[in-house]
């Protein structure tokens, strides 16, 4: 795997902040950022359910492997030099349920979090 495309929500401040942070991190796998449900996203992935990508963070590999929600978060961490070991930790059977809960909590409340944090 040489690259991952991150379909992020361009409307949410938290996601934009995360995008900026990720762009600065040293990477083991290249990350491309494409706004979800955009022209570009539809052109690249004509068969993907784009309504679904608006609900949850989606990551697509160069080979077309699709990761939704918590798995997408873990894959993004896996791409980073400093956080690859965390991707293994968070996706271990003991921690995966917690990872899922925390990720869905953040995802569902991302607009409120952005508003409260002033992003």
């Amino acid at each position, binding site marked *: *795997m040489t690259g991952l495309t991150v379909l992020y929500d361009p409307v949410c401040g938290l996601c934009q902040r995360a995008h900026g942070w990720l762009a600065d991190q040293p990477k*083991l796998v290249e990350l491309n950022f494409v706004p979800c449900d955009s022209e570009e996203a539809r*052109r*690249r*992935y*004509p*068969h*993907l359910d784009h309504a679904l990508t608006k609900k949850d963070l989606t990551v*697509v*590999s*160069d*080979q*077309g*492997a*699709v*990761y*939704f929600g918590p*798995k997408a978060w*873990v*894959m993004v961490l*896996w791409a980073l*030099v400093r956080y*690859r*070991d965390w*991707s*293994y930790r*968070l*996706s271990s059977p003991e921690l995966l349920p917690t990872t899922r809960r925390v990720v869905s909590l953040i995802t569902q409340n991302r607009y409120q979090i952005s508003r409260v944090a002033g992003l």
Partner: protein
Amino acid sequence: MTIGITTYLIYLAISIALTIWVAQTLHKNGRVFLVDVFHGNEPLADSVNHLLVVGFYLINLGYVSLALKLGYEVRTAQEGIEALSGKVGMVLVVLGGMHFFNLFIFSRMRRRSSVHHGPPPVTPDAFTAVQEG
């Protein structure tokens, strides 16, 4: 030569000999780890190994030197041996601590480097066609 000075000299001899022995053990056996960490890049492994050993020497000899002063007078041979035992014991504990710290660094470097070649941690949820360009 008073018993006090003899105690100091024996302390220095034992501490320095121990430091050299541990450092050499580390140098000899740490190399294999480092060559593995740096994927067979031997000059780099040797260089890092040497730098680690220099740090090890500096910290340990620094400690040995700082801990030399007894702070009380040694009058009999028995007191000398007791003082010596206490001082050398502390040096051994510090050496042991440093040694395990070094091992920890080696193993962490090794894990870090192996993690960089690991497969994705999760399986994909689906597959989709990718339109290139």
